[in-house]
């Protein structure tokens, strides 16, 4: 069986730190033996005590320090313990790290990545369960990526650090415990490959990658759930749904999505974010504008309710997007209901 996603990520950090003596890793409680709240950083501080630092509780300050390292030509990865607290670093991300790439009249590489453990379904409550990706869409100079079981974390993080643009990396907290997919195989029914300009989009299909009734686009955190929905749709409703999982959420690689969307004429975007100003709305706008004629129905968005995320599991479910919501949306779009 393939490794767990958290192991893949941990190994990615090991490899990146080994390869690059100018790379730092900063965050709260990430040194050994604790190794981070989600154990992502295990073993790193033992190998590189000078470059893997536990910090005080200072989310804004830590991202500022990372910005300084980047400015000095180094590389830095920051772990925000719960992505909800990245709100405290909004200024450093928006007004310093991202701006500095361009506001001095020339391209200034800023090689830093802010890792954001994200999402609900673990009963951590309203201030520890959010999916805040959407609030960072459209900051000039900033790239957003999301961890996925299809994308090797080392490649994604190296790509972010290499680009010279600061990046946020969203990591679904439940996904940590899932397994990576490997060798193009999802299960006995589904296969996957990587498409798009830089192979950024994982495409999950059954039988024929060029054939489907509907395209379902999700960020990595929903990939496992989307695959389960696609399976149900196939077995229960005889609907062929192709799942597309871009690793990069922003800037969008619309070109990587358009062929499949144009063929199917139907698209659903699902994400865990609460309603309003979602990533999906931006995707939908790109598709509506670029494939207006090919669409049989408006792009359908599925997301969590416009609500705080409750702590108790039975209430959390009433707010967070559920597999059944995605299932229903695809079915409605396909059947025109």
């Amino acid at each position, binding site marked *: 069986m393939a490794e767990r996603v958290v192991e893949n990520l941990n190994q990615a950090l090991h490899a990146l730190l080994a390869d690059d003596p100018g790379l730092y890793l900063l965050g709260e409680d990430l040194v050994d033996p604790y190794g981070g709240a989600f154990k992502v950083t295990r073993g790193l501080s033992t190998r590189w005590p000078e470059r893997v630092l536990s910090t005080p509780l*200072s989310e804004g300050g830590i991202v500022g320090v990372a910005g300084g390292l980047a400015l000095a030509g180094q590389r830095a990865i920051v772990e925000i313990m719960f992505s909800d607290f990245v709100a405290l670093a909004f200024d450093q991300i928006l007004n310093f790290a991202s701006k500095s790439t361009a506001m001095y009249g020339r391209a200034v590489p800023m090689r830093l990545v802010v890792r954001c453990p994200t999402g609900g379904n673990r009963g951590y409550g309203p201030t520890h369960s959010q999916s805040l990706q959407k609030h960072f869409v459209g900051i000039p100079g900033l790239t957003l990526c999301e961890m996925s079981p299809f994308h090797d974390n080392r490649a994604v993080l190296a790509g972010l650090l290499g680009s010279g643009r600061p990046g946020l990396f969203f990591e679904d907290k439940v996904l940590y415990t899932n397994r990576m997919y490997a060798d193009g195989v999802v299960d006995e029914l589904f296969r996957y490959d990587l498409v798009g300009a830089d192979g950024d989009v994982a495409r999950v299909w059954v039988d024929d990658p060029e054939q489907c009734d509907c395209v379902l686009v999700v960020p990595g955190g929903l990939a496992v759930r989307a695959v389960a929905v696609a399976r149900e749709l196939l077995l229960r409703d005889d609907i062929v749904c192709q799942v597309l999982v871009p690793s990069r959420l922003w800037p969008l690689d619309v070109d990587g999505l358009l062929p499949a969307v144009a063929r199917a004429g139907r698209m659903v975007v699902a994400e865990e974010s609460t309603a309003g100003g979602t990533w999906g709305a931006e995707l939908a706008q790109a598709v509506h504008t670029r494939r207006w004629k090919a669409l049989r129905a408006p792009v359908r968005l599925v997301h969590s309710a416009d609500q*705080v995320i409750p702590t*108790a599991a039975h209430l959390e479910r009433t707010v967070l997007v559920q597999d059944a919501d995605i299932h229903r949306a695809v079915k409605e779009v396909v059947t025109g209901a």
Partner: protein
Amino acid sequence: MTAAVTAAPPAPSRLADDDLDLLLLIRHFELALLDMFGRGELHGTTHTCLGQEYVPVALRPLLADGDHVFSNHRGHGHYLARFGDPHGLLAEVMGRQGAVCRGVGGSQHILRDRYLSTGVQGESVPVAAGVALHLRRAEPGHLALVHLGDGTWGEGAVYEGLNMAALWRLPLLLVVEHNGIAQSTPTSAQLAGDLAGRARAFGVAHTLVTSTDTNTVRAALAPVLRRVRERGTPAVVELRTHRVGPHSKGDDTRRPEEIGYARAQDWYARYARAYPEQFAAHDERQRRHVAEVVREVAGRPASRWEEAGRG
């Protein structure tokens, strides 16, 4: 200061029965939670205040209903000392009917009357300053109290709030439960200088309390609260305390001697030794009380969150 902390703690003084009951209620409540987590009966997370129960117990008679209390992630003791309501709190943690916040907030996010906790460290200090701004004008003599940990002093929000409270002479009291650690990070690795200096930097009075004896702590705090009320100016109280349990569920990576040291300071065992008879009776009573609360609340149906309450 260091000397006071490392010396063997003096023998505890005898507690009034109701103080002892409250201390033990909190203790057994927390133990029951860890127990349930261990058995997989609770989901999410929780932060117990094992070893720090005496802080809110010492404060209890010093606070009036009109005072605002801001708690934090480690807030069960604060809640129980204020409301004596293990049912409502446990129902909240378990998401059962009668939950004080209907199971929406859970362990870390509680609002009841003038008591509030939330899950982002440091955020409450400016908020409490805002409350104190209102109190100063509308209800002089009342105060806003914030419980915060030593690690929380890493957050810039603390300084922004403290600065305004000092400038505007607001009745804001910061009660720092300095347990020497933040999650897994020792204070020496997260706090430069010391808390006395941090308070003084803003012209704010600072009081250090190293005792873990409820009576002694209360006696030390009484004049501080009185001054905050009378002068309407902020103050910082630093309580050197000991986190006897893990940070949250089972994540204690301290070395055995560190944990041993914290345990050795724990008021619970020391009080049991000093006043065995009084202790045994009350301890047994509260243990049973909590067991009964657990049994009763676990039998309740799931909490309901009515549409009206939804944002």
